[in-house]
């Protein structure tokens, strides 16, 4: 006999989320994800001047606002055939990285780790320590992290006027030229954050963390002092609670490539990693389709490519159980996020752990943390590469008619904007966000989305109404429901 469990409201995820579980023998037998809120951004954008997207889209989501801006700016740049000057490119990367890393930090300290302070773990050796560090509102590290994050975001006060919701990111670059002395100041700020990471999170130099090449190395390092720094405490907890085996995903991973460089190329390569073949396939964005079969949205045309996508609410549609469409790549379910970026860009440690454990709670969080260690030094480099007094922004008019695509890697994974204009106005604007992928419902073929797959088999303890394992798995994706549906 299966029983049904309706879980919600979730929190410590962005936006509202509901999961319906079918339980069997103390395990999840099947799951359905509901993104319960619809705002209609794609509808709102119609008829507006294309540049208005730069004001509107960031407001899709307050936690990955910049990612949206970047995707929109790239879509418009694509539409207008613009090329950012090097300075603009660097600044855009710095702004985006600032947000991405802040999101990772927020996820780890505010969203993910607090679950280990729950009474269910009271018997664990590390529980008191977890409480001391991660109890919401009182945990020492939680508070330290909020404080570090606040300082970190001051980077964006300088570079982007404010966060969230900047308009400083333009198709042609950045509206905020940086003077030499400001660069110095920004570097100091980055170092301040680095110091937080090196003292609190990793208790080790970032370069040392980024250079861990195998799980053996990781474990050896972990064993040196298993609770020193929050990362190692996480590793201890993960070991103890078997997170490595919890919530295995679809084992196909999508990355659009992150941090494009002025000379071309990305610092995190694009591609599709398949655990089955242990190989990286090329990215074919043309193979994306959105399937609205189980969404309260019109699906008359069947699965559509976003450039021709359609978004029209049909609130009373039968069989629908979410406001989210189901994007598929070449018909397949993929997972996206830091883990995908690491796999695509061949991080040896991540490739090894994923090969060993699959995409699970443990490997997702690990990949995210590694990114913190990798990207901060990159940011330092970008700032150093600025050529003060060179241009930060070029200005080109947009064509009256055309199509533009903007792909970007947000904290949570691959984000795409597709814009179409006619007579200087937007006629269609489609957005496929990372959590749109990860938390997609079943498709026309009935194939469940990534999370829906990952939940299957999750243990549910007696009397649990909001099963802890389910929470770990859900949060391991760092979902953002406002992005998901927009």
């Amino acid at each position, binding site marked *: 006999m299966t029983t049904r469990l309706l879980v919600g409201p979730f929190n410590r995820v962005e*936006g*509202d989320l509901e999961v319906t579980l079918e339980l069997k023998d103390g395990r999840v037998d099947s799951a359905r994800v509901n993104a319960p809120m619809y705002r209609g951004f794609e509808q709102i954008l119609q008829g507006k001047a294309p540049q208005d997207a730069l004001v509107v889209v960031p407001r899709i989501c307050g936690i990955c606002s910049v990612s949206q801006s970047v995707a929109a700016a790239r879509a418009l740049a694509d539409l207008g055939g613009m090329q950012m000057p090097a300075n603009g490119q660097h600044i855009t990367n710095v702004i985006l990285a600032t947000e991405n890393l802040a999101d990772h930090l*927020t996820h780890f300290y505010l969203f993910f780790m607090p679950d280990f302070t729950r009474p269910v773990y009271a018997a664990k050796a590390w529980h008191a320590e977890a409480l001391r560090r991660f109890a919401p509102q009182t945990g020492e590290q939680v508070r330290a992290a909020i404080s570090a994050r606040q300082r970190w975001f001051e980077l964006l006060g300088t570079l982007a006027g404010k966060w969230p919701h900047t308009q400083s990111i333009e198709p042609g670059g950045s509206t905020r030229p940086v003077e030499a002395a400001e660069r110095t100041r920004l570097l100091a700020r980055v170092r301040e954050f680095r110091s937080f990471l090196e003292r609190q999170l990793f208790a080790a130099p970032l370069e040392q963390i980024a250079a861990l090449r195998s799980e053996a190395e990781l474990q050896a390092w972990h064993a040196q002092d298993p609770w020193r720094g929050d990362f190692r405490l996480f590793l201890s907890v993960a070991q103890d609670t078997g997170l490595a085996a919890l919530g295995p995903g679809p084992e196909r991973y999508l990355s659009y490539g992150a941090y494009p460089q002025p000379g071309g190329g990305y610092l995190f390569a694009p591609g599709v990693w398949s655990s089955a073949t242990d190989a990286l396939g090329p990215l074919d964005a043309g193979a994306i389709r959105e399937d609205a079969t189980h969404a309260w949205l019109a699906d008359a045309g069947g699965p559509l490519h976003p450039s021709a996508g359609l978004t029209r609410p049909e609130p009373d549609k039968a069989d629908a159980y979410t406001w989210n469409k189901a994007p598929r790549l070449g018909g397949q379910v993929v997972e996206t996020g830091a883990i995908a970026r690491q796999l695509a860009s061949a991080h040896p440690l991540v490739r090894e752990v994923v090969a060993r454990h699959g995409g699970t709670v443990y490997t997702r969080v690990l990949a995210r943390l590694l990114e913190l260690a990798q990207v901060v030094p990159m940011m330092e480099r970008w700032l150093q590469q600025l050529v003060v007094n060179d241009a930060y922004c070029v200005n080109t008019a947009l064509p009256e008619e055309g199509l533009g695509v903007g792909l970007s890697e947000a904290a949570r994974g691959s984000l795409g904007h597709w814009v179409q204009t006619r007579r200087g106005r937007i006629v269609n604007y489609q957005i496929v966000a990372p959590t749109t992928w990860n938390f997609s419902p079943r498709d026309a073929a009935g194939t469940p989305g990534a999370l829906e797959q990952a939940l299957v088999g999750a243990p549910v303890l007696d009397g649990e109404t909001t099963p802890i394992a389910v929470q770990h798995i859900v949060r391991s994706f760092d979902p953002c429901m406002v992005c998901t549906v927009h």
Partner: protein
Amino acid sequence: MGAVQTSPPGLNVLWLQSGGCGGCSMSLLCADTTDFHGQWRDAGINLLWHPSLSLASGSEVIEMLNAVLAGTLRVDALCIEGSLLRGPNGTGRFHVLAGTGLPMIDWVKRLAAKARHVVAIGSCAAWGGITAGGDNPTDACGLQYDDDRPGGLLGAAFRSGSGLPVINVAGCPTHPGWVTDTLMALAAEGLSEAELDTLGRPRFYADQLVHHGCTRNEYYEFKASAEKPSDLGCMMEHMGCKGTQAHADCNTRLWNGEGSCTRGGYACISCTEPGFQEPGHPFHQTPKIAGIPIGLPTDMPKAWFVALASLSKSATPRRVKLNATADHIVVAPAARKTRLK
């Protein structure tokens, strides 16, 4: 949290999110303090629940909400972030609170009736905001306003337990300081209606104009204007800046350290104002009639604006003129050598 809810002393804050983007909360966490939670605690603010900051999830939350409705848990400030989605067709089904099957607008209405203060966090919750843009596909509105029309979800007549209308901490996002100051004021001596402006915004920030303290002021004085993104000049004339009209202290009380929209190189879109999301023109362009901007500085007659603007343009020093359209200072201010200053 256990089944029986006790009401702690201090200002009990219950925070819910609906048709917004969560950005107001994200912004809030950037409050200028070294210990966010400590600051609240010391100010006597008690966070009953916040979707990003609390442990409680799922059933625990529902239990708590029920305790509030049951009157066993006191809510002093009901903070709502995000607009209220009344559609489709008034059902509110565009947002059904997860795990409850009940539209969020119903939850909000019921909880508002219990709260000592109701606070709209951000322009979404205040006026409908960005979600009410375009042709407002979700019939979004604010707690007590539909753009600048009183009404909204709770109605123009609504008053919370304290006798105040909804306090509109408008802004998109709203400034962390605005929220903190508002809540701290409520936790301390409270706010009087006199401290709210005609739109229910706390006057401490709404009585300012964004233009106050803009670093581009000298350019403004000479109407030396930026012509493209990354120019240093004033953005009122061409680039859509509404700083002279927007009620907010963004250039006085900066954002994320030393930021503000105009400091960031882009126009103020007056995000604290009702209806900002639909200005009737592209955000990045100043609408003009006969070359004169339609949106004139607050309290300034057009004739004066015209007379002064054109004169001051003629008076523009070379430095100001050239720097206005450059992305870095090309002419430095003269260093005077005079004893008598």
